[in-house]
């Protein structure tokens, strides 16, 4: 009798409650955000400025740009920056990420979005989406982690190319031969062809 009770209690205590549907949460979140962005992109009445502001308002809470900035420097370099450098770097990096994101939106015409199931990878959740364009299919993998009550994106892989990974090795390269000031200068400099023409 007692044994039975202990068995039951043991099971109750040590069996975690059924997985709290974290992959489900991520799926709902990402679909909702992307659908809203697509609505804005398809709305031809908006001018570009309104559109971009709208997009940022939607996606900003989902992307952890600051974490991305830190991860891009990594444990190796981030702690070595002083306070001012950290602030300046964060500001520049976040700005750059936002600009880059908005610019990718300019390439959007009327592709269809296909969502895959979200998968739990350790404590993180990965979700694949596909952008079916006129002549190919682009795989975009969003990587989420749990931040307090929310799920936030800390990296995006486009066709297997991780944004954070490419920044990490580039920044490491810059800092190996140069200083933090060099890195900040490079970040300040807009791309060589900053006035990109996109007229698809």
């Amino acid at each position, binding site marked *: 009798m007692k044994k039975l*009770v202990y068995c039951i209690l043991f099971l109750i*205590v040590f069996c975690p409650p059924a997985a709290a549907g974290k992959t489900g949460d991520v799926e709902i979140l990402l679909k909702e955000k992307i659908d809203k962005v697509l609505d804005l992109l398809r709305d031809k009445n908006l001018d570009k400025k309104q559109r971009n502001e709208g997009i940022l308002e939607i996606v900003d809470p989902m992307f952890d740009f600051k974490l991305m900035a830190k991860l891009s420097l990594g444990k190796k370099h981030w702690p070595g920056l002083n306070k001012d450098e950290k602030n300046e770097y964060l500001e520049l990096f976040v700005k750059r990420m936002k600009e880059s994101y908005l610019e990718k939106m300019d390439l959007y015409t009327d592709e269809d979005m296909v969502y895959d199931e979200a998968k739990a990878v350790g404590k993180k959740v990965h979700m694949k989406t596909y952008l079916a364009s006129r002549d190919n299919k682009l795989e975009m993998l969003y990587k989420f982690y749990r931040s307090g009550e929310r799920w936030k994106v800390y990296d995006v892989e486009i066709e*297997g190319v*991780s944004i954070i990974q490419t920044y990490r090795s580039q920044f490491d390269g810059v800092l190996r031969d140069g200083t933090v000031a060099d890195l900040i200068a490079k970040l300040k400099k807009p791309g060589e*062809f900053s006035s*990109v023409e996109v007229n698809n």
Partner: protein
Amino acid sequence: MGGTWPFRQVAFFMRIFQKSWLHILFAILFILLSSQNISAFVRENGTLIVEVALNSFPSEAVHIQDNVGDEDFFDNFEDEFGDPSENEPFDPLSGYNRVMTTFNDKFYFWLVKPVAKGYKFVVPEGGRLAVNRFFKNLLFPVRFINNSLQLKARAAGVELSRFCINSTVGILGLWDPAKDWLELEAYPEDFGQTLGHYGVGSGFHVVLPILGPSNLRDSISLIPDYFLEPVSLIEPDLDELAVKSYDKLNYTSLHIGEYESLKKDAVDLYPFLRDAYEQNRKKKVKE
């Protein structure tokens, strides 16, 4: 484990209430309610550390004070990305590669892009897409053989069906009914992927003139793939080159703006393109 305390608690309960099923039920309910918090705590313990560490990063950049928590916090992600200096690839040709990257960049902006834009202006998109599908269909032997070499029976089968359907119903591959009607999508595979599939490493990075980023394995693999490509049979060689250039030009006309946009993400163009290429190839080999 922290398992001793609920047992004692139960014993305590039972002594008070004496043994009876109803009381046991109450005890279970009580433990059930409290245990959810406990197991949630146990499970989330790691996450909690992350969150504590995260919260130690003040939300406003202006208030950054110290690095408390950096260690724990980064460890959760560092494993995923690895140490950049250990990841530093063996790159004996980096000097040449940088020069060739600049050359290819200029070649694109000064020659390919203007021509592609002119071509795009003249030929409507529908036509260019059809031409693109036509050339893609012609690459069937490359995809079919490489899928077969990797024993990807399903993919090879789909490729064969696609070729048969698209070459006939799709009129020489100008249309793609296999995809549009039957949802049969192409499975692009090349010889570099076949070698990678059997464990051949990528070797050092090589930037090829005009063709762009590649590596030792993939460059060598261009040779077998060349012989699988029907367009390679065209004689004389100059005509073959003309047809292949036209294919590339047509393709470029459909993708103007993509390289430019990609390039803006680069802090340093050569390592950026190199890493992007290698990561992308790694993924393709894995599939």
